[in-house]
């Protein structure tokens, strides 16, 4: 059994799985149920001046008959009085001293507002603070959430104000609704953040109802943009984590958030530099009990890889994440069809024919059956055939022996040397 304990910027947790700030962490009742189920920590639903929420609030993106490939919400921060939340945090922390409780905070961008709320939540015994500079809907119209998080100066200044008052670690949660997330990550680090977390939700409109022509979701026939999350956003979140993890001037731990719903997703974020992960949509879809397999699966995986601690996994893939200009132009792979596994759906053929490089051809075997083969000299190794192939093992991408490595950047340098 590997050791799953983490120390995230000073916040200790018995495993790296935290519930992200959101509907599942709205009350003490929920957070305590989550801790009973095995979650290592929870980021309490964002505290601030209470708001009024609307109904309805959520919507799901279905794909191919599966529910919740993506998820979107127009719910705002907590709509319960601050005193009630603080009382429940105190009770929960007292009952679960070994679990991490992090308070998510969002107030107006004023120094005294930040000082005041930090003092009040630290007073009830939280293990850390997470500054919500991310929610893209509602609060942003009031100058908070992503409206703050999209302006590096505001991120830095508010982080600084928080740090002036805070005694516990401060995590800055970043919005993905920005061209370059490293700009705000850098600002947070400059402001003194102990850690960053990403991503908050992505601006989205889930859909339009084809019968009523209403937006999805709608509130009395009207709708607005909401925050997008769930499995579909994972690649976006992962790239943003990678961007920050590879920046030497963002030298703070990262808590990974975005579409994580099992130990495999979690392990990928950790390999790419996250040292804790946060989950929301998956818990909303399936309940808190999903954490059991996250813990068990991660444990088995670490054992299989011969790693004694989950911290040994963190960042192992970061050095493999590069700029495009650092990729080897001379490297070549080609597709190869394994006839033993091919089920003859011909999806690779039509995908290559219509959308790639027209190099998967029919031929007739000696026994008269029709089969497909790759004309390897024309294959560019794009992977499309192996992506659309439904039969595991039927298409392999084979590394070809190649010349000396040559990246675009190296090539440009050479040209300028010879040219100059």
């Amino acid at each position: 059994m590997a050791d799953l304990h983490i120390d995230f910027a000073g916040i200790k947790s018995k495993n790296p799985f935290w519930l992200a700030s959101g509907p599942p962490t709205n009350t003490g009742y929920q957070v305590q149920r989550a801790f009973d189920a095995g979650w290592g920590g929870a980021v309490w639903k964002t505290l601030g001046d209470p708001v009024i929420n609307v109904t309805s609030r959520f919507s799901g993106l279905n794909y191919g008959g599966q529910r919740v490939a993506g998820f979107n919400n127009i719910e705002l921060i907590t709509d319960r009085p601050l005193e009630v939340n603080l009382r429940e945090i105190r009770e929960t922390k007292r009952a679960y001293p070994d679990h991490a409780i992090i308070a998510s905070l969002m107030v107006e961008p004023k120094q005294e507002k930040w000082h005041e709320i930090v003092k009040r939540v630290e007073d009830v015994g939280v293990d850390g603070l997470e500054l919500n500079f991310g929610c893209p809907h509602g609060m942003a119209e009031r100058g908070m959430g992503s409206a703050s998080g999209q302006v590096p100066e505001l991120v830095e200044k508010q982080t600084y104000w928080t740090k002036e008052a805070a005694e516990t670690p401060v995590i800055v949660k970043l919005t993905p609704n920005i061209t370059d997330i490293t700009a705000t990550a850098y600002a947070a680090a400059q402001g003194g953040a102990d850690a960053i977390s990403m991503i908050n939700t992505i601006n989205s409109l889930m859909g339009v109802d084809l019968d009523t022509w209403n937006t999805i979701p709608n509130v009395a026939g009207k709708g607005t943009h909401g925050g997008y999350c769930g499995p579909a956003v994972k690649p976006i979140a992962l790239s943003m984590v990678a961007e920050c993890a590879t920046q030497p001037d963002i030298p703070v731990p990262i808590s990974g958030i975005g579409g994580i719903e099992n130990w495999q997703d979690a392990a990928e974020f950790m390999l790419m530099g996250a040292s804790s992960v946060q989950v929301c949509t998956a818990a909303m879809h399936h309940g808190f009990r999903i954490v059991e397999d996250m813990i068990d699966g991660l444990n088995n995986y670490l054992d299989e890889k011969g790693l004694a601690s989950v911290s040994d996994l963190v960042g192992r893939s970061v050095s493999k994440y590069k700029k495009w200009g650092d990729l080897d132009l001379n490297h070549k792979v080609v597709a190869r069809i394994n006839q033993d596994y091919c089920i003859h759906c011909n999806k690779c053929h039509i995908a290559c024919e219509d959308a790639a490089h027209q190099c998967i051809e029919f031929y007739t075997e000696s026994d008269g059956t029709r089969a497909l083969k790759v004309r390897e000299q024309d294959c560019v190794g794009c992977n499309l055939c192996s992506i659309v192939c439904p039969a595991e093992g039927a298409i392999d991408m084979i590394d070809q022996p190649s010349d000396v490595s040559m990246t675009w950047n190296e090539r440009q340098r050479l040209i300028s040397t010879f040219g100059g």
Partner: protein
Amino acid sequence: MDSAATNAWKIFDEVKPDMKPKEVMEEANRCLFCFDAPCMKACPTHIDVPLFIKKITTGNMKGSARIIMEANPVAATCARVCPTEELCEGACVLNDASLPIMIGDLQRHTMNWAMKNNPQLFEAGEQNGKRVAVIGAGPAGLSSARELARYGYQVTVFEKQAEAGGLDTYGIVPFRLPKHVALWEVEQIKKLGVSIQTNTEVGKDVSIQAVLDGFDAVILAIGMAHVPPLGIPGEELDGVFDAIQLIERVKSGHVTDRFSGKKAVVIGAGNTAIDAATCLKRLGAARVQIVYRRSEKEMTAYPFEYRFAKEEGIEFRWQTQPKRIEGDENGNVTSVVCAPIMLGEKDASGRRRPIEIDNAPFPMNTDVVVKAIGQMRDVPLIEAFDLAHDHGVVAVDPLTYQTSNPKVYAAGDVIFGNGKGEAMVVAAAEQGKKTAQAIHEQLLSKI
């Protein structure tokens, strides 16, 4: 109708329920949408299976129904009676990877939608002034009529029965194929302006000459006739029935209690034998045995039909040859005396030849004997048309479906036989389509 009668009829309700909505979406989404799909090639009518299933997933049910019926005008029937495990589902690439897509059930779902919502899927073509007569309103005749109407022909179908649909209406048990399904398909064809004249027997109510003279082309789609005699003593006894007639009676709503509590023997092991046997069971027969002179391997019933019969409690007596039927003093059947059979070398049909074991006859006590040993041919009508034939199987050009009289075409069971093809509804539908195409190509030059 009193409750007993209602219940009696209920046992003839369609056995298989429609798929549940979630089941439909899960199954439809499982389809890989293969390119150049083997299911489509395996279907005799070449329904674009991946496309009709894709349309189910997008909620485009009208489009799904159009894709299916474009290829097969009797697709609601075929979705119920096709041996899908030998055709589309047997060819599904997922057979090797997991489980084949339930194509037949999905097709049935789409066709059920179509029957309920009745969209106008097709239009008659612009009238081209040519007239075609179709003799027989079974699947082959209806299919050719539908296609010809879409090409712009004025089509008249002559049907001797009171209702159109042929075997689909009269010859397949209602709990597998309710009559309303076949009649709905007939309605779709009528909507295209096809005139279907029922209770009209060509050669009797309408003269053959009138048909030959009054139309630019004639399609003979008369199918087959009743079950031939067994050629054994006792066939005239009370209690001996023809399977086709028995099913026809039930299909027409005549529920009788005369089989209630009786023992029955069905002779033969084809599709009709299964239908007759399961039908008798539902009519209350206490014990129903199928006797067949060859073995399980040679029977022509499909595996799904065999499974169904066994589920219904039908017993099978293989390698058993009826020798004579015995009766009591009142002329009622009391037993069938049978001889055991051993199977010898393969004969011309590729099946092992049955050889009777002498001196070992045994009686099977029974009240009812149902003959289901194939169907006869309407040779007199074929000869009245002066068409070349081989034992009632009309000779046609395999490409144009033209008979020895170039003006007369033939499709469906009337050309089935002598070891060629299978007498399936779906095959008849395809032949009807092809005949229509051939006629159109022949007459096009004259339009």
